[in-house]
């Protein structure tokens, strides 16, 4: 299936996430025409500083995802610690405190799978550095629904296991450096 016109970006990262995201998100303009969903594995503290830390270096709006809020373009939604982030078919966000998946809550797979259902071919999935295999199954769901997959090159990642597992699950996903991922995310909406 050929990926359709991009409508949303879904990003998963684990060990080394802050550094990797800091190489990608600052490159997105304030009026980036898509929403970006981000799941990062974090300790289950109540307050995450992730959104605030990233906002300092970014022009695009970065917020912690809230339950049942309507999804807006030009916004990065970060899953809160200790909750799964799900994308509803009517394109709202949902949070859930269901069991961890692959020892992770939030789970990249859960977000990717529900986003794939909501956006189908319009979804771009991005798997970054990490020391587990979360995201592989989700990226496969994104590809199966017709969306596209970008994976950080394992040899250039802080932790290679997660991108490696994603590439094993989706051999046709593009393996790129962080720089190339940032360019790709900008380039695919350049003509709008």
């Amino acid at each position, binding site marked *: 299936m050929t990926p359709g016109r991009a409508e949303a970006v879904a990003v998963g990262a684990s060990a080394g996430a802050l550094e990797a995201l800091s190489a990608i998100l600052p490159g997105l303009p304030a009026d980036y025409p898509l929403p970006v969903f981000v799941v990062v594995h974090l300790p289950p503290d*109540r307050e995450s500083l992730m959104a605030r830390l990233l906002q300092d270096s970014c022009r695009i709006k970065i917020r912690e995802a*809230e*339950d*049942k*809020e309507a999804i807006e373009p030009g916004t990065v939604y970060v899953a*809160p610690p*200790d*909750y*799964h982030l*799900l*994308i*509803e*078919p*009517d394109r709202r966000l*949902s*949070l*859930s*405190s*269901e*069991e961890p998946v692959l020892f992770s809550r939030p789970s990249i797979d*859960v977000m990717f*799978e*529900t986003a794939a*259902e*909501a956006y189908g071919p319009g979804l771009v999935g991005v798997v970054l550095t990490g020391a587990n295999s979360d995201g592989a199954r989700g990226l496969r769901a994104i590809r199966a629904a017709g969306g596209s997959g970008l994976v950080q090159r394992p040899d250039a990642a802080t932790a290679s296991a997660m991108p490696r597992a994603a590439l094993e699950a989706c051999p046709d996903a593009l393996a790129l450096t962080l720089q190339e991922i940032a360019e790709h995310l900008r380039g695919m909406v350049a003509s709008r």
Partner: protein
Amino acid sequence: MAEAVEDIEFRLLLEAVFRKYHYDFRGYSTASLKRRLRQARERMNCSSFSQLQDRVLHDPSAFPELISFLTVQVSELFRDPAYFRAIRERVVPYLRTYPSLKVWVAGCSAGEEVYSLAILFREEGLEDRTMLYGTDINPEALRRAEAGVYELDRIPSFTENHRLSGGKSSLSDYYTAAYGGAVFDKSLRRRAVFSDHSLAADQVFAEVQLVSCRNVLIYFDRPLQDRAIGLFKDSLSRKGFLGLGAKESLRFSSHADGFETFDQAERIYRKRGDA
């Protein structure tokens, strides 16, 4: 775009469950419910939601198993200790002024929060004047709540949570270890009632001074969230308290005007005197 067959089957299954068993999941958030129903489909060896529907309609013994997938049962004693600390330090001083108290734990699952509040109210000397109502739609969860037995390996985190919540006693005072489980003291249930109640279908059953409903509303869509919050408002006495989960709020509710924020960080609200 034509509706996907699986989506049609998904809605029909929820309709079938409602009409046959009067459990109404039609207002639940789709993404999480569908995920859980797919797990049920796999574990119950059905190839489609239609087949699962056929099974559930014709074999009532399959229904309890399905219900266990449809309801989320993840909780702990004193989960989010800061919430219980806020109840203890900020809400209890107001509750002390009432000669008798009723507390409603809505969506109590296996009773973890009811036992937490029972312990907290005992520590604060309010136990004798308090009735605790724990309600849920899952009969198996209610049975477990009634039994008050939790796996021993959960006790260390319960103990730590209790300590962080400002606990004034040792959690080990309240349970005995037996047969691989921690059996909580029956006396904690003396003032507790567990019963079947649906936030989607049932009405208010008592006037209460505190409603605690945490990590339940996130599984509902907006209209059902609003129905539930309306029940809480109608159930609360003037200036009564409502505690929600760490990521839940009244911000989008049509009943928001009926409440004031009492503790923003811990998501504790207070019904207005004129509401």
